[in-house]
Each structure stands twice: as C-alpha cells, then as structure tokens.
C-alpha cells in the first residue's frame, strides 16, 4: 500500500434501511487519493457522492468494505477517535456554509482551534492568516447574517483551512453561489491547494467546479463510472 495515499477505499459499500428493505448507496467503491490532490466526486443526485464524502469524513461508517483515511480505518474508529480525526486532520466545507450564526466571523474561524491546544496568541495569528487567504480581514467583527452568500462560503473555507488540515472535504460548495462568487471561491481553494499542498475532495455536479478539478471521479448508481485526469 502506497504511504502517499491519503484515502484508500476497498469495496466500500453503504446500505441504508428503507421501509422494510434496504437501499444501497455505495456498491463497492475502490479508490485512492494522493496527498495534494484537487479531486472531485461527480455525479447526479443519488449517485452516492455525499455518502462517500461522509464516510471519508468519518461522519458515517461503511456497511461493508473499508475506507482508510490517513492510515485509519473509518469503520474501526470509536466515536472519540473519529472525532479526533475530524478535529485534527479534516476540514469541511458545506453547501449551506453551516456557520455558527451568533458568532462573529473571527469566532467562527477560531472555533476549530479552540478544540485544539493553541494559545490565544497563536489562535489569533492563525485566524488572521486564514481570513487573509480568503480576503475577509475587514469583516472579522461581523456575524454571518450580515454577510453575503459568497462571503459566508469564504468564512467556511477559512474555518476549514485555519488549522491547516491534511484533507478538506467540500460538499457542493458552490451550489448556493452565483458564477462570480463560485469562481472566486474556487480560485481561493485552488491557490490554497497549491500553496499548502492540502488535499481537496469535492462532491459536486456543478460544471464551474468541474472545470477546476485536476482529477474527476464520476459516480453512477453507487459505483465509479469513470475517472478523468486533467
């Protein structure tokens, strides 16, 4: 097994109970992702891309097969170990931003650092760096309801990137944004990928995002349909 792989999935299967039967969302996915990739899971609704992203993000567990993320088998992690993995190594970007509404931009970005052992000064520097990457230094005291959709998503990117995670998982990050904001966000993420060598894995069916991806993994009905490399 190549140590450079940040993600390995082997015959990854996920079934959900549905009525009296079951629905199989993933039907034995075999995948590998190298460190520093800028890759997307592409497919229509119901193809299994969000389910795959959730398992890789240790928010869900496989029904069968294996998902190994940074050497850790997701199915074998305890709740505490999974939380530790997310806390230390993973960053998440969501379609609807999922910012903490009563907290300021600064506090939202600072939040992941509060869960780690950083001093106040370290946190401040890291938050300011992250906000500089996304160009929101002038908004630190504002709260999410005072920001535009594009600004909210940039805050979410800053929050995902502030602890410099090894892997960022982005689920439809541009779905709620207009074209200009989408390109702006994607350029920011592409630059962070270049500068920090952070691995990005997207789940998307947005053509704008697809245009930026270096590798495209097409999913169809819970299976890998094809893989394209730019």
């Amino acid at each position, binding site marked *: 097994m190549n140590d450079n792989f940040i993600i390995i999935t082997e015959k990854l299967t996920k079934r959900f109970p549905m009525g009296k039967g079951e629905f199989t969302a993933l039907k034995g996915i075999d995948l590998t992702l190298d460190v520093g990739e800028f890759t997307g899971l592409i497919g229509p609704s119901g193809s299994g891309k*969000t389910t795959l992203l*959730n398992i890789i*993000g240790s*928010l*869900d567990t496989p029904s069968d097969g294996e998902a190994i993320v940074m050497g850790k088998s997701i199915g074998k992690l305890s*709740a*505490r170990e999974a*939380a*530790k993995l*997310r*806390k*230390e190594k993973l960053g*998440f970007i*969501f379609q*609807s931003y*999922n*910012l*903490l*509404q*009563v*907290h300021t931009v600064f*506090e939202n970005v600072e*939040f*992941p650092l*509060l*869960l780690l052992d950083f001093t106040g000064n370290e946190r401040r520097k890291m938050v300011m760096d992250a906000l500089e990457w996304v160009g929101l230094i002038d908004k630190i005291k504002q709260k999410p309801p005072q920001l535009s959709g594009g600004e909210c998503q940039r805050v979410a990117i800053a*929050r995902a990137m502030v602890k410099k995670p090894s892997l960022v998982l982005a689920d439809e990050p541009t779905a709620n944004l207009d074209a200009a904001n989408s390109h702006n966000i994607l350029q920011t993420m592409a630059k962070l990928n270049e500068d920090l060598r952070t691995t990005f894995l997207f789940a998307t069916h947005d053509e704008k995002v697809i245009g930026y991806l270096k590798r495209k993994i097409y999913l169809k009905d819970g299976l890998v349909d094809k893989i394209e490399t730019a």
Partner: protein
Amino acid sequence: MKLAIKLAYKNLIGAGLRTWLNVIVLSFSFVMIIAAKGILVGWDRQAKKDMNEWEIGGGQYWNVNYDPYDAFTLNDAHSAIPSQFSNEIERGDMVPVLITQGTIYPEGRMQSILIKGIDPEQILLKLPTSKLDTAVGAIPAIIGSNMARVNKLNKGDYVTIRWRDTNGTFDATEVFIADIFTTNVPTVDLAQVWVPLDSLQSMLLMPGEATILTFRDAVSQRSEEKNWKLMTYKTLVSDIEGMIKTKSVAQSIFYTILLILALLAIFDTQVLSIFRRQKEIGTYIALGYTRKEVVMLFTVEGAMHAVFAAVVGAIYGIPLLMWFARKGISLGQSSSDYGFAIANIMYPVYSGTLIIGTTLVVLLATTIVSYWPSRRIAKMNPTEALRGKLQ
C-alpha cells in the same frame, strides 16, 4: 468544559429575547422561593425568641400532673418548690409560677381564665411584673393586650375574679388592672390574669407551692426532681418547630409548582433548540465534537439559564428582599388569634444556607431538565443533522 461554558454563554446571549424570557421567569421563582422560605425562617426565629423571653426562658420544670392542654389537671398540678432551687430563685435565675383555673366577671359577663401567680421582682421573663407591686386596696394584676381587648378591660379597672382553693371552696375578690402588656406570645396573654405569687398562694392555701419553674440557663445539664418533670428548651419549642415544618411542606408544594412552570419553559426551549439547531449540532460534530460533548454543550446551555436567573434575580431580588427584611411583612391585627407565637409584623431572615441551597436546587433542577431533551442528540445521525433533516 471551559469551551462549553464559553459557547453556551455566547449561544444564550445570541438567542436574545427567548433566553431573557426564560431567565426572568426562572429568576421570579428564585426570588419567590427565597422570599417565602425567608418568612418561615424569620417566623421560626422570632417565635422562639419571643417564647424564650416571655414564657419558657431556657427551659422549665413542670409539676408532674401539669398538662397545659387539660385544665382539669390544674387542681392537682402544684407542689412545694424544691429547696435546692432556693439559691437559683434568689439570684433571679429561676421563676416559680403557680397556676389555677378561675373565672373573671368583666362588665357582668363571665369568662373562664387561668390565674397565674408570679414573683413581682422577677426579671427573667419580659412580663412587666414590677407593676404587681402597686399598692392598692385590691390585688394588683397585669393582663395582655388581647385579654384586655376581648374583655374590654383598661388599665386602672377593677374586676372580679373567682377561684377554688385547695379545699375546693369557692372564693372571689376584686383585682386591679395595674398594667396591660403587649406580647406576640398568646400563651401568656389570652384568657389569663397575672397576680403576685404570694397573693395567689394565699388565695389557694398553697404556701410555697408552684406549678411551673422557669429557669434561665438552657445549656447546663439538669436532672428530673421528685414531683417535677424537666421540660428542656428543645421540648418546649418542638410544637412551634413542628408547625413550621408543616407550613414548610405546604409551602414547598407551592414553590415546586412555581419552579416546574419555569423549568417547563426551559425544557420547551431545549426541545425546540434541538430541532431548530440540527445543522449547528451537525457542524459541531463535523468540526471535531463527539455527540456526548454536544449533549454536554446543550446541557450547559440550559443550565446556564439558572446562572443568569440567579444574577437577574439578584439585581431586583436583593433590594426587594432587603426591603422586606427591614420593613417586615404585616399580618394585621388578626395575628393574635393564631394561638401560637407570631408577631404582627414578620421579619424574614435570609441566611447564606437558604440562598446557596436554593441556588443549588434551581441549578440542579435546570441541569436535569436541560439534559433530558439533550440526550436525543446522542442518537442523532450527524449526516442527517448536517442537512437539518428532522428525525
């Protein structure tokens, strides 16, 4: 935990009006519980103090036949004062009281009374017995203000009293009302006439005898004496303690209802929060919280209502309760009819134990009702929560 407190504080402040409505309702319960309990504590202290000063001193010896609830025992409830108490009586540390049944005839009416004989020179009890030294043609007597009111007697009046001596012979005389005293202890006031001990001993043909011996010192160990039953201070105040305990139980029901209403609002807020804030819950988990940690965060958030309520309650409660403690709460004229020691104006007492105890009870109850709905988070699927799907 520090982070949970910080986040909970931020979330509560951010929730705005909803938080403050809950906090105000809870703070109202807080203040009401402390106020109501303070009245009982104040009553307990005042009643014991008054009883100590006016009636029971540090304890009493009762003649073995004496039963304050059975007037028929009075005929036999007397015996010679033991000689070993002579020094104590001489020093003013013990006061003998002789009691007999009698009848008073104010304005041609008749009423059964207790005639009590007491040394005019005693200073152990607050009764103004020095007025019994008044030299007039009749036997000087003092009565309480409620006795005076009921019988329409005034200071300086002459009134006839009748009694039976030790041989069962009826006799009667006029007494002169030398003074009328005001007390919160009805058992030294209602239907009673106090006369000099020597006079009553002569009237009853019971020289050197008494029914009750009241002593000053409640601390030293005393033993039973022949014909005399030792009634400690603790025993003598047990009735009032029992009554306050009963009142306290009744009051507890009242403030439990009050507290439940306030806690219901917090419970409701918690349930609503968990439904409305599913995405936030999912986000906490995605960022590295375990579900248990999110449960703790929501529990701390709910429990923090109690902390805020304590602060808000203190802001308006401290001046209000201090005002009550200084001005007292008037129970009106009717308080004399209760039959036990109770002042017309009650002064509540708010002890540290009462305030800390109430705070802890409210905090604990709030924590429990906050934890109860929060347990649901532990069963949430984080991926569903992130999408804000109702489960």
